[in-house]
């Protein structure tokens, strides 16, 4: 009973707010709108806080990985850095290029932030805690996500700048390419669960073998492969290193964000992080069991804490990858998408089907593992360019 109370504390709080005196006797329409508004404000509040936290933590973690301190001047451990950054962004001059397409230039950051926030709405953050629970939640996520490409294009075109346009072209090219593996790797999960609703997918990963091994999809071979593919595609979709060629600052200044300054730039920055949260949240929902506890005995800890713990772990990996890998080339990204990611994503679908029709037991587990390993080896043999790498010979320098 006590656990239930903690688990449902936010749901209960919302119910209490809606049952307050002025609202209780209001017509249904008003209650519906109030309920949506509460959801929206809670969502924005949580994720803006997380955004502020992550922006400083990312710099701290990167600093630690590169043997330096990172921000440590503002407040204890530099924790007030985002506040200072926010104030700086707000009072900066907003510069719009004279030859820019003013309306499109102005609308692009709004659209990109709106789509990122909308995508966050369909993810179940805890038991009974989906802000916008619809039947086709996964489809909604991708439909909204595909609109981002248009916003990026608007930013690039509206700026009337060669760097911006180049950056936008790169962004759209890689987003379209990686949308395919991203969607196809969600397909096996949707097939196995038999539903497009995120809540049903989380419910489908309930239960434990021997009370310890959770029934998350990442624990199956096809699930693990799909999770890795999904995560890499997510890196590309949110334009993070090593796939951040759209804003490759050594080549094209900042890509589609070159001509944005002040608060509009901050909006882009926020949208990028929100996109990262959304993709990671969906990865947690699809493969890491959503808000379920990893071990049967740990179910007394509230569901939303588990969700955000998994989300934070994934975000840490994002930062880790950024601190480790150099930026890839555009052609490398494209080749990787079409020649490796896409066939592997289809293999995951086949392996999941085999797993399902073998009765979801050990035999199916081994069969799907075998399929994935064989395809992986064959693919990597076929894609091997057989380039010999030798020590570099310097002709004009010692």
């Amino acid at each position: 009973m006590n656990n239930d109370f903690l688990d449902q504390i936010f749901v209960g709080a919302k119910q209490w707010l809606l049952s307050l005196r002025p609202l209780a006797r209001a017509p249904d329409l008003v209650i519906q709108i109030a309920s949506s508004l509460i959801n929206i404000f809670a969502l924005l509040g949580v994720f803006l806080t997380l955004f502020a936290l992550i922006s400083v933590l990312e710099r701290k973690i990167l600093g630690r990985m590169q043997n330096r301190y990172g921000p440590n001047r503002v407040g204890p451990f530099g924790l007030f850095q985002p506040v200072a950054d926010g104030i700086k962004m707000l009072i900066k001059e907003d510069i719009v290029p004279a030859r820019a397409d003013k309306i499109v230039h102005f609308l692009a950051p709004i659209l990109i932030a709106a789509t990122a926030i909308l995508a966050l709405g369909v993810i179940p953050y805890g038991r009974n805690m989906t802000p916008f629970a619809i039947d086709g939640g996964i489809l909604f996520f991708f439909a909204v996500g595909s609109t981002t490409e248009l916003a990026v294009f608007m930013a690039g075109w509206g700026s009337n700048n060669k760097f911006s346009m180049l950056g936008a072209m790169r962004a759209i090219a890689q987003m379209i390419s990686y949308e395919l593996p991203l969607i196809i790797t969600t397909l096996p999960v949707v097939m196995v669960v038999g539903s497009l609703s995120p809540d049903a997918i989380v419910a489908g990963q309930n239960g434990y073998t021997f009370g310890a091994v959770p029934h998350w999809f990442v624990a199956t071979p096809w699930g693990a492969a799909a999770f890795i593919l999904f995560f890499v595609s997510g890196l590309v979709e949110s334009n993070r290193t090593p796939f951040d060629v759209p804003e490759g600052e050594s080549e094209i200044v900042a890509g589609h964000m070159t001509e944005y300054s002040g608060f509009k730039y901050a909006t882009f920055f926020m949208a990028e992080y929100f996109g990262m949260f959304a993709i990671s949240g969906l990865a947690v929902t699809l493969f890491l069991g959503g808000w379920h506890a990893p071990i049967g005995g740990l179910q007394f800890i509230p569901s939303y804490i588990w969700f955000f713990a998994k989300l934070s772990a994934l975000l840490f990996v994002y930062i880790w990858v950024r601190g480790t890998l150099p930026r890839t080339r555009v052609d490398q990204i494209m080749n990787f998408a079409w020649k490796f990611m896409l066939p592997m994503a289809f293999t995951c679908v086949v392996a999941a089907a085999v797993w399902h029709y073998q009765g979801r037991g050990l035999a199916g587990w081994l069969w799907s593992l075998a399929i994935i390993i064989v395809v992986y080896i064959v693919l990597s043999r076929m894609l091997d360019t057989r380039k010999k790498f030798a020590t570099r010979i310097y002709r004009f320098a010692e």
Partner: protein
Amino acid sequence: MSTAAFIIITILTLAAALAAASLPKLIHAALSFAVALVGVAAFFFLLGAEFVGLVQVFVYVGAVAVLIVFTILLTRRDAATPDKFNWAGVVAAIAVFGGLVWAILKTPLTVAALQIEALTVKRIGEVLMTNYVWPLQCVGLVLTAALIGALILVMEEKNSKS
């Protein structure tokens, strides 16, 4: 509630469609067209056809609008040519409008609301995989053929250059 929403969405969609037809810059027209498509998706949501609305956004805004914008970008620079009044276009538009009006007027509209069950995504999936599995496979075949065709077109261009 739904009447008010209907009126607002209608105004937005019609305004966007008008803008798409009349704005001088092609990119603006294409972006307004995308807004009009979102408006159509909103109509589907209003009618409770969630799946169709989502697919509308997914396919038309996510793919078709991006394709249109890209095509405009790759084919022409914005040369501000003064638009000549195109009489052939007017005739074609009136003919299409007349045909549509004729078709709509000829169709007997049942006023009484039909008793239909709620169209869930699950139900659509079930029907697609049972009753309509052959049409689905045929569409898949056509799309695959189109994909391979597009690839071959691109490859031939590459060969002739080298």
